[in-house]
């Protein structure tokens, strides 16, 4: 415990930048990791599930502990914990950034798998001259060039001179390359694909919004009402005429379009969303619990 609870730096875990101790630690850690790796490879089969179960449990246990274990009350950087309870609490809170970085980093290392899958599919297609192999070439070329320009641009922006490149005047080829590929193409295609949805909404609404069943009718009429209320001009005219009719009668004012739509959204939209949210939330909690305790086998064998 003492080893973990060290608050002073440098210590066993945190060595000064570029110090011999640090690099020995890194290399040592790497060796340990590799040994662990090999150890697991040649581990008897019956231990496999327990190992996975254990790792999963430890991962979850941290957050659960953090949740239920009393954390020190506004402990300042300059203060030391009063007793064992507080020091454990402090340790849990301090560990937070470390734990936070784990899943992101581990996933990042696995990205190679994704790229591998992409490459294997498209290289096969090219080598076997399958249908559309030309497009696979396009994909690979764009992949490579984006990677190249991306890194070149990134490197050129390092160091105190980096800020200069915020001005286009100081750009070099690589900066232009990255800008063209990323801002000029990638981002624009993002926006384009996103906006395609507008067309699909139109056709979907035209096809599906028919007054066939009670449900469909409810859906349709609510949708139309809300849409109209969000169109400033329509709302303004409707409200205006209502205000004119009401002249001073506050009760009638409730029939302004924005009022009605607002009421529906407050009363039914928010509430039904909340109903769903409770259900889904509990579902996620249950699923989380099952995974944490490895109660179910992922892959749901029938």
């Amino acid at each position, binding site marked *: 415990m003492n080893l973990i609870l060290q*608050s002073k730096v440098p210590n066993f875990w945190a060595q000064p930048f570029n110090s011999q101790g640090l690099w020995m630690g890194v290399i040592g850690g790497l060796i340990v990791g590799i040994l662990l790796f090999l150890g697991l490879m040649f581990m008897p089969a019956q231990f496999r599930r327990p190992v996975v179960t254990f790792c999963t449990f430890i991962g979850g246990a941290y957050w659960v502990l953090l949740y239920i274990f009393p954390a020190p009350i506004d402990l300042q950087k300059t203060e030391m914990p009063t007793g064992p309870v507080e020091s454990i609490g402090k340790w849990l809170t301090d560990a937070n950034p470390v734990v936070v970085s784990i899943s992101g980093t581990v996933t990042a290392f696995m*990205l190679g798998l994704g790229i591998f899958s992409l490459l294997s599919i498209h290289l096969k297609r090219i080598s076997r001259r399958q249908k559309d192999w030309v497009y696979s070439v396009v994909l690979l070329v764009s992949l490579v060039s984006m990677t190249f320009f991306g890194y070149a641009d990134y490197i050129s922006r390092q160091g105190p001179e980096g800020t200069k490149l915020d001005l286009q005047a100081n750009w070099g080829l690589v900066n232009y390359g990255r800008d063209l590929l990323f801002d000029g193409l990638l981002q624009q295609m993002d926006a384009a694909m996103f906006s395609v949805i507008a067309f699909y909404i139109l056709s979907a609404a035209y096809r*599906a919004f028919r007054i066939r069943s009670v449900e469909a009718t409810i859906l349709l009429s609510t949708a139309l009402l809300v849409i109209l209320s969000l169109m400033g001009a329509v709302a303004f005219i409707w409200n205006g005429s209502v205000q004119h009719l009401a002249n001073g009668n506050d009760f009638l004012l409730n029939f302004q379009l924005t009022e009605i739509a607002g009421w529906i959204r407050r009363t039914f939209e928010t509430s039904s969303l909340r109903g769903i*949210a409770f259900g889904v939330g509990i579902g996620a909690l249950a699923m989380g619990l099952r995974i944490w305790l490895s109660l*179910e086998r992922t892959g749901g064998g029938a």
Partner: protein
Amino acid sequence: MLIAEAVGQQYRETGWFGVLFTAILVSFLLINIQRAKMGKNLYIRRIAGLNAIDEAIGRATEMGRPVLMVPGLSDNVNAIAVQAINIFAYVSRLAARFANPILLCCYNAAVFTLAQEVIRDVYQEEGLLDRFDPDSVRFVSDRQFAFAAGVSGLILREQTAATFFLGEFYAEALIFAETANSIGAIQVASSTEATQTPFFIAACDYVLIGDEFYAASAYLTRQPVLVGSLVGQDWSKLLVIALIVFGTIFNTITVQSKTTKAWDDDNGVYKDVSERQNDPKQSFIQQLATPFLPKMEVERPKDPEAEANK
């Protein structure tokens, strides 16, 4: 001092009730999982969308066209992705038996890894490993709309006969749904994002709404653990309902009970009416949910080094 150690910061923020309530929910789940394990057979109501799965695959087999599956766009492998993959394990098991080609498009590398592993297992269990093509489970892109473009391209070129969109879907939901619809594929869809469900309803044949998605694996596989936890979820929902109803009644009564002078706007006079504390923080249930414990000081020794650095 002792209090300070017993009651941590988080209890002063969310209160003991939060931890207790979560604990109750957890216990509900565990109890029912135990019940189910002990062979108590528990009832699950019919879920239309799920009965459609077999039909969809059957249709795909007749046409000899592939089945496309997308386990949502989770940023990292989480329960939603896992649940989707569990359902897809069931789907691909059927597909494998009918020797029907499958396509599983992943958005995240970790999800891809899991899917690869799980689907291979499925084929192995069925003893049909020769039918498994590792490229049928593929990573398309981890950029939302590149993924959308890629998958719709696949749908159109492969002319998929059945498509399953289950998991975490956002704006791209409608792109998939309409594309698949335009080639007349039979679609089963569900998004844990309630905001996307109406679009699936508009464009898909069968839609699992909200929680039905989490019920799916229990419904399909009838594993005791899953069924049990489903019952536990229902208990939890009932508890939530009970809490809401109790809170409402209690709230209503408190409001009625306090009376004082208040303005009657019609007759323009003061008159006796009960007064509601319209500050929600005052309502009992709110205080239960988030108690406002006073800030408290704790005497601690100073850390000399930190002082020095300051």
